[in-house]
């Protein structure tokens, strides 16, 4: 028994550490963060406006646009690629899947630092000046490094704001305004505000052109098997679903993602099942489980094979959410639903 508790405690601790690191009361956080980035003389963009912002409770001060960025997880990598900043990436880590085709060429040359969360030394070896992470937990002492410690070394850090866990920072609920705000913020940090505005504009246009479906309910299954880890009411999954015009059967659950019980799913009998395709829990695995389970195979959606498929990287807040929402709506229509 002690070993199980140690393990559970360890896991919880590993998740809690970044929270502690991010708390404003962290004594090691300097009141004014050191100015990061290379010396002003090396600016590549004329007229760069220094940026000061509060990112998940940690002050970030950027004096010059970062030139050597390490990205952790897919959404930061894709964000930078969308902003045309691919050459500034010196290493990518913990990617969730392949990048979309339009950026495949740019992404091909990106050095892969690690398949999982990299360690501090591996990151420092690349001599970065900025680390852009998709999850708060990536920037912990046993991950890429504690944010304050990296800042002292002159390395700026930034976590995707939608991934902040703390009250007041976690978007509740996540909206596309939050997503687009991140694009603008990143643009400001990297000294490419006009490009960011362009990207945001085109995303807004694409968003407006989505025709929502009607009368369709959905269950969003991200991972887990016996106890599915499902999209709750306030995160990216719900945003995507509601943008596509669908009703999330877990819309009342006040979490971004939550472990659900299959019985509740069967009771709700959703019209479609959104199955996230991740390398650790594939679309095929999910379908196979559904169809071979004596209870779940009775679901209307399973009997009629009404599955919607989304790649994992597009399901966390980032530049692919609009495309994901559009894809969902389209797939639903292809299934003959939604009007």
């Amino acid at each position, binding site marked *: 028994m002690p070993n199980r508790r140690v393990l559970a405690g360890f896991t919880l601790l590993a998740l809690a550490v970044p929270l502690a690191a991010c708390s404003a009361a962290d004594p090691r956080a300097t009141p004014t963060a050191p100015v990061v980035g290379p010396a002003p003389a090396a600016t590549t963009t004329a007229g760069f406006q220094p940026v000061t912002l509060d990112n998940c409770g940690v002050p970030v001060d950027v004096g010059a646009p970062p030139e050597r960025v390490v990205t952790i997880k897919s959404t930061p990598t894709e964000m930078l690629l969308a902003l045309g900043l691919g050459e500034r990436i010196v290493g990518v880590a913990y990617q969730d899947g392949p990048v979309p085709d339009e950026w495949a060429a740019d992404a091909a040359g990106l050095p892969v630092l690690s398949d999982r969360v990299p360690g501090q030394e591996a990151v420092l070896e690349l001599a970065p000046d900025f680390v852009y992470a998709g999850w708060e937990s990536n920037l912990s002492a046993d991950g890429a490094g504690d944010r304050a410690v990296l800042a002292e070394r002159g390395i700026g850090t930034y976590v995707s704001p939608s991934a902040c866990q703390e009250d007041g920072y976690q978007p509740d609920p996540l909206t596309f305004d939050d997503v687009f705000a991140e694009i603008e913020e990143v643009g400001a940090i990297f000294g490419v505000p006009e490009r960011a505005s362009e990207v945001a504009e085109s995303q807004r246009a694409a968003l407006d052109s989505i025709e929502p479906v009607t009368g369709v309910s959905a269950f969003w299954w991200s991972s887990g*098997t*016996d106890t599915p*880890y499902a999209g709750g009411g306030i995160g990216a999954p719900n945003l995507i679903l509601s943008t596509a015009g669908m009703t999330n059967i877990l819309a009342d*659950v006040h979490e971004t993602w939550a472990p659900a019980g299959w*019985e509740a*799913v069967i009771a709700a*009998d959703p019209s479609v099942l959104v199955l996230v395709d991740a390398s650790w829990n594939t679309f095929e*695995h999910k379908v196979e489980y559904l169809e071979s389970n*004596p209870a*779940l195979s009775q679901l209307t959606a399973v009997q009629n094979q009404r599955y919607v498929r989304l790649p994992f990287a597009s399901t966390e807040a980032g530049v692919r959410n609009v495309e994901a929402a559009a894809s969902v709506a389209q797939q639903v229509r292809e299934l003959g639903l939604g009007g």
Partner: protein
Amino acid sequence: MARDAAERVRGVVGHDEPAAAAAVATGDAPSPAPASPPEPASSTAPASPPRPRAARRPPLGLLVGVGGALLLATLVVTVTVGPADLAVTEVLRSIAGHLGFRAAEVPRLDDAIVWELRLPRVLTAAAVGAGLAAAGAVMQSLTRNPLADPYLLGLSSGASLGAAAVLLLGLGVLLPVAAFAGAVLALLATLSLARTGGSLTPTRAVLAGLAVSQLAAAATSFVIFWTAKGDSYREILSWLLGSLAGATWSSVAIAVGAVAVAGLVLVFWAGRLDAFAFGDTAAAALGVDPNRTRWLLMTLVALLTGALVSVSGSIGFVGLLVPHAVSPFTGPAHRRLLPVAALAGAVLLVWADTLARTVFDPRELPVGIVTAMLGAPVFAWLLRRSRGASWS
């Protein structure tokens, strides 16, 4: 002549002679008057006075009857409870229909919920709870350690390692097999570490089990942190904490089968376990082979626990607590303790699992969390109650 002597012993034992009794007066107290039956004038008795208790414990038939009725009631009630709002009549109709009785048609999905989700789940919970409680009681007696539980021999750690490995390799379908294999390998490692020239002492068994547990836990942690991608750690965590969410009719078969087989063996060996109360030498003097008994029973417990863990993950506290909760009513005699503990464990786990799947509807907790939350305060209460007991 020996027979005469033996008869004389029985003769002496058989007579309730005040004279004989008075001749062996209480050691440390003033001798009572010879003619009267000796009264407990133990002025030097320790601080706690004799605990007031009923002269006899409840008879076994009563305990088993009450326990059985409670379990049946629990099963019936909990199968009607769940996130899906199903009427009780509908639930009963669904079950009746599957059992071959003529019953009105039940909507396909509701029927699936009752027959494929809830019923296998409560039955598995009952079997796992019963098995863990009985295994815990046996381990506590074999190691003469009130803190023993079924996982003492490194079983749950070994099973966790097997489970983590297949879960992370994406071979989830092999989970029960891998978990069982892991448990058995851990047992073999523990027993070979613990044996000294063929004999298996309780202390060495406990220590060896600890060593194997720590090793397997470290390996499991390594596997998780090395290979876990995305949020797949949640699946393993759920298993490590124990979860009945994936229970199917084959889980029921495995769990019930394992408990039935183990129960059958324990029926024959329960009496032998009693002899261990005063240690190995006393057990041998009472006609029990302590070494062989310990080997056989530990292996039995390991196989039972391995089977249970393979369907439910490592659910804690049940094996540790239920024997202690039950023994004030049954006494330490294993032929009473084991069946009542099994029934109590079954009832406990079914309720714990029901809480786990309904309290945060539509979300679900791993049942191991609920048993821990229930278990810790109960343990504290038990400790407070047994002021005079041998744990001091």
